[in-house]
């Protein structure tokens, strides 16, 4: 048994690693710049005027999030690309430069061009335009900032250069002083193009970055239960989860208990009365229940039972925190139950139908066995045959289903929590996804994965306890 558990753990670790890698890479390659998102949230928009302080704030935040480190332990890239490109702090710039190196295969020249572009930008920004040139100057500035973002498309770069030429080339304009700097920029761009080494793209290179990387930092903190802070409200994620996990767990546990209490007898009775009309009705009903998508039922319930336009029997959202405040214990409980009835129903009915179908199948299988016939033949009362001999043996598959139900409930909770606005893990996950709050998404996905696997392990162990014939230790 012990060896078996060890073997299972042997699977868990790589599984968790794979999931963590997938989720982490999602966060890295997701569109959007988390640093920028955070900054704009805090200050309500980046002001163009004090570019310098904005840049400093950006770099500070960038370092704070640990994004100045390489992404992973190693990369397999091409000779053309740059192995220290992670040191460029602006994500948009990095992507533009990567696109350029990918096209021309010559990092050195691209790097020179980037430096030249920054220099040119400085020259442009320090220039004090007079009333005549101010319009062309602002156009020039826009072109430069566009070059950072869309410089990866060569056609766009050409166009921007041409436009900048026009803006600076007007006769008797003060902007003329910028012409030499622009010429430098253009020549460095020409260098990128003429010294292209496209072949380098096809030669792989392996870079080793060591342990000081973003993935390593994140995963080592994660194992120590240090989940970091949420991008959305700067709260520690552990605390956020602590606040939210209560409702998910509460409803899941009540729902599992309800499922077993109702489904097991239902399955047994339907199996005993096989072929009767009662069985037919139950079976059909359970099949329909099993196939009904829970988000449809939840939507229907919330529209038709929680609405003044139709019937208003239940509150439409929340868990009644405000209403229950200051009430006596029992009336508070009543309010909570009133709020939770519909979500609980939607949470439960699918697994209930699934479980009773399984129970019925298992029971039917057992009732066909020889020892049941023997028990009946020796004159045992039917109730004893059913409950003592058949029921116990048919419990076996039902126990293992626990492992499947548990993760299903957590995934299923996502949509129910969203519909009924229950402040649980599922709703938190969806909110975090919409807000691109990756630390929260990582944490929840990893937690669900861990819980899923613990569920499987518990099921395996239970299985061995219930059925003494099963041994995991000796094989072959």
């Amino acid at each position, binding site marked *: 048994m012990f060896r078996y558990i060890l073997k299972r753990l042997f699977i868990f670790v790589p599984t968790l690693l794979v*999931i963590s890698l997938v989720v982490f890479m999602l966060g890295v390659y997701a569109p959007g710049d988390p640093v920028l998102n955070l900054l704009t949230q805090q200050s309500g928009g980046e002001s163009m005027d004090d570019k310098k302080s904005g840049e400093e704030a950006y770099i500070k935040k960038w370092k704070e999030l640990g994004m100045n480190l390489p992404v992973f332990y190693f990369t397999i890239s091409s000779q053309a690309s740059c192995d220290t490109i992670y040191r460029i702090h602006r994500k948009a710039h990095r992507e533009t430069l990567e696109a350029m190196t990918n096209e021309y295969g010559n990092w050195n020249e691209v790097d020179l061009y980037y430096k030249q572009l920054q220099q040119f930008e400085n020259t442009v920004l320090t220039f004090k335009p007079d009333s005549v040139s101010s319009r062309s100057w602002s156009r020039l500035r826009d072109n430069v900032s566009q070059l950072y973002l869309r410089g990866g498309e060569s056609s766009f770069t050409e166009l921007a250069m041409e436009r900048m030429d026009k803006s600076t080339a007007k006769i008797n304009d003060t902007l003329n002083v910028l012409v030499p700097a622009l010429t430098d920029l253009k020549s460095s761009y020409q260098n990128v193009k003429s010294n292209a080494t496209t072949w380098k793209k096809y030669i792989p290179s392996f870079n080793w970055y060591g342990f000081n990387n973003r993935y390593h930092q994140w995963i080592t903190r994660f194992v120590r239960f240090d989940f970091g802070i949420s991008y959305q409200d700067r709260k520690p994620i552990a605390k956020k989860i602590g606040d939210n996990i209560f409702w998910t767990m509460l409803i899941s546990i009540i729902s599992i208990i309800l499922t077993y209490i109702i489904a097991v007898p239902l399955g047994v009775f339907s199996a005993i009365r096989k072929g009767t009309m009662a069985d037919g009705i139950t079976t059909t009903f359970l099949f329909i229940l099993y196939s009904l*998508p829970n988000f449809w039922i939840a939507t229907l319930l919330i529209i038709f039972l929680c609405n003044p336009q139709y019937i208003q029997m239940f509150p439409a959202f929340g868990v009644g925190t405000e209403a229950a405040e200051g009430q006596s214990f029992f009336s508070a409980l009543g309010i909570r139950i009133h709020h939770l009835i519909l979500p609980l129903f939607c949470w439960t009915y699918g697994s209930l139908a699934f479980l009773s179908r399984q129970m019925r199948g298992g029971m039917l299988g057992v009732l066909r066995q020889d020892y049941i016939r023997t028990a009946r033949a020796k004159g045992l009362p039917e109730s004893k045959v059913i409950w003592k001999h058949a029921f116990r043996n048919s419990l076996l598959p039902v126990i293992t289903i626990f492992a499947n139900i548990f993760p299903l409930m957590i995934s299923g909770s*996502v949509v129910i929590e969203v519909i009924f606005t229950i402040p649980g893990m599922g709703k938190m996950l969806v909110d975090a996804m919409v807000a691109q709050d990756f630390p929260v998404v990582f944490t929840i996905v990893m937690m669900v994965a861990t819980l899923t696997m613990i569920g499987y392990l518990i099921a395996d162990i239970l299985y061995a306890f219930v059925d003494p014939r099963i041994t995991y230790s000796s094989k072959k």
Partner: protein
Amino acid sequence: MKLFNKKEKEVTEDSKDAPQTYWSYVKRQFMKNKRALYSLYIVIFLAFIAIFADFLSNDKPLVCKYESGIYFPVFREYAVDLGLANWQEEFNNALWNDLEYDWAIFPPVPYKNTTLDYDNSNYAGPFDKQEVRSTQWRHWLGTNKLGNDVLACMIHGTRIAFLVGIVSMGIAFFIGIFFGALAGFFGDDQLKMTRGRILMNILAFPLAIFYFSVFFEWSIIAGVLGFLAVFVLANLLGKAMDFVPWLNNKVKVPMDIIITRFIEIVVSVPVLILVLSVVAVFPPSIFLVMGVIGLVRWTGIARFIRAELLRVRSLEYVEAAYALGYPRWKILLRHAIPNALAPVFIAVAFGIAAAILTESFLSFLGFGIPIELNTWGQLLTQSRSAPKAWWLAIFPGFAIFITVTLFNLIGEGLTDAIDPRLKQ
């Protein structure tokens, strides 16, 4: 249908006493199950709607006479979409519903899922008075807030649901067959390689991924070819290293163990949550949804194939094929896999149901499918902000429910037909 070859068919039709083939047996068993059979008929009907969605619901006429010329705009649309033709001058950027036709035959639903009817926006109900020219233009199932015709959205939603279900399971089918066949056919002791080749294959893996990503920029086929080419070269190199003493020892590759462990890892992944996070992060795309569902749902198929092949491997006819000197891959492709396919269809039927459910779940949460397509799940989610529009809650949800149930029933019917325990 390649599987029913003509000769076998004739035999079963001629005489029922003659030995039946396995496939005709499965077919007969399936036909006996009326519930599953009718489900299959309805699914075929729905598939018909999905395929001809453009002819059933379109804002363009099927045939029309316009300014003394006869046109076939719906057909033309296919040509335009394929890049074979352009719109005629007079139809460029036309508002199809408002053109002054001499005469025109419209599809049964003269709207598309993306057509906005501004006169009937803001939830016009099926029984409400609608601002339409005639009964032909009525919105039989109502409209949503923007004025999309719900019936049109339902018809095109059928297409999206079927597309996602079938394509994603198609992807899963090939991945599953590939891994399942490798594990089941070779087992733990059938595949022997020299140490040199094993080493080269392991080393080739990262390189293959690199070349896949490099050539992927050209096209997906180039990427796959690049990937395979690296492995071919690695194996040739491994063979060339046979003169090195230690490296040329042949060892068994425990294919079955490796792949079973891999399957176990994929199975333990919480699928729904993972699919949700992948789809939520990237911009909406139907291909992403199909790909991701396909990539996580193949394990059931692989398990079926593996189990069947492990069984088939020791059957007499495979041994006979060996004895006749057929090459291993030929036995695998020609004899073993076709016989192992039957149970796989069970997994595919249930898988399509699950994929359609996943797609509507994602649409419902607002991830994955572009929002302007108005799929079933998206319509359903719109009903939450407008409780009075009951038609937005009832019809799309019912469509999801029916489609999922039908595929589940077919799956059950197949299980009953194929399960050997029921054989008398």
